[in-house]
């Protein structure tokens, strides 16, 4: 299995496991099994980077039913944490198969085990995803803008 990568957010080490793929909107996609021809099935969750920015998740809701086709960047849900609110968007064109029902009762697994039991939904897509080094490079290039965004909004 490829080694995990680490992205330094200031002093915080955001781990990027080598056993899965990524999307630009800071989700990981871990291959489950082959879907229909040309499609792959993935479990999807927040990367350590996103969880670090969100901090404690209070509330998660989805705006579509399981087994719905989605377009890339289509809004699919909402999240509220101690630090942030955000809409959530589909990582690629594809199909959202099912949601992690446990999180709707108690989203704390997102914080406790974001790469495991804190997975968000199952997703089927035939599109290309980012490799761990791709994702690490993306974080590197976006880190300044992210810091500006956060500082701009928090005025500190």
């Amino acid at each position, binding site marked *: 299995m490829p080694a995990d990568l680490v992205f330094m957010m200031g002093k915080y080490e955001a781990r990027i496991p080598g056993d899965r793929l990524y*999307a*630009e*909107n*800071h*989700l990981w996609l871990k291959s489950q099994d082959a879907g229909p021809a040309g499609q792959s099935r993935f479990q999807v969750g927040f990367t350590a980077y*996103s969880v670090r*920015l*969100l901090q404690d998740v209070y509330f998660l809701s989805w705006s579509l039913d399981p087994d719905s086709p989605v377009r890339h*960047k289509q*809004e699919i849900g909402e999240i*509220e*944490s101690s*630090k*942030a*609110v*955000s*809409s*959530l*968007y*589909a*990582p690629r064109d594809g199909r959202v198969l099912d949601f992690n029902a446990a999180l709707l009762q108690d989203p704390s697994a997102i914080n406790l085990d974001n790469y495991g039991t804190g997975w968000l939904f199952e997703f089927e897509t035939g599109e290309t995803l980012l490799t761990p080094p791709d994702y690490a490079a993306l974080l590197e290039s*976006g880190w300044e*803008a*992210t810091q*500006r*965004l*956060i500082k*701009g*909004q*928090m*005025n*500190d």
Partner: protein
Amino acid sequence: MAGKKVTVVISQGQGKNPTKRQLEEDLAAALIMEPDCDVSIIPHLYDLTPDHTGLLFLKSIPGDLVIAAWLFPRAARWVLDRNGVKGQPGVSLLPAADDEEDAAEPEDAPADAQARALGAWDVPHRKIYCLDLRQQADYRVYRDEVRRISRECSVQTVDLMSWIQGSPQAAQLERYLHPQGANPAPAAAAEEDPVRRRWYPVIDYSRCTNCMECIDFCLFGVYGVDSVDRILVEQQDNCKKGCPACSRVCPENAIIFPEHKTAAIAGADVGTAAGLKIDLSKLFGAPSALEQAVLERDVELVADGRDAVGATVGVPKRQAHKPVTRDALDELIDGLDQLS
């Protein structure tokens, strides 16, 4: 100049959130005991139709006014302005969760970026203070701020006297209630109904440069111009509930939808977003402002049985060759865009 009273109007929150109601009631009860203030409660300011008694009452207030609402002060100010309740923006010293360099008069001392803005017009000398009820949980903070404002107002005798002599209010209001040919949409048939939720844009004229991008982009006829070609929200009830697309294409971030969940669209001021949460939507894959505006407009077009037009109609172009001066809110919005 004793006996000068300040009028405090509490604008109720939408819905029946008990915490909000409690704060409104506690504040009202506390202010009734104050010798120098008159207190009234009206339904949610943004939802009032032009002929609602709450709005008529607001228009009838001659002197300094404090409005406490579940709105960003900038949103409250321009909702009032739109409805002909005009005044100089009073500077509230309401302590924020983390105290900033004040809500520092965003329109009194416009920076370069606002130099091209239309600005509010025909504003009387009285002051309007907008307090954001979401900022603090304890009614006593608001009561103390009202006391402070009340003292501030009674000290400024020169301003008040000169204003009272002139009594420009009625004539001015008449002009704003009935601008030439462009009456703000009358409340069609809803007049006797209890207040219903509304959704419409509010223009911040301290930022608006009259560039007309909004009137080009909106295909629902919400915008118009007055007799001197100033942009205005002409048919506000043509606006599509939930759609903030025009706000996203506005190059000056001058269009406010007070009930939108994104603080920048709901009228958050630069430097007063204290206590608000960060919006990470860009980070999690939200489309760019223009992409999203186009998507939102298409959804509403299709819902109306019309054809989606994508980016073929009314996308910003007038600004292409103009030099741009920027301020902190521009930086914030662009910071969001760079994250895609």
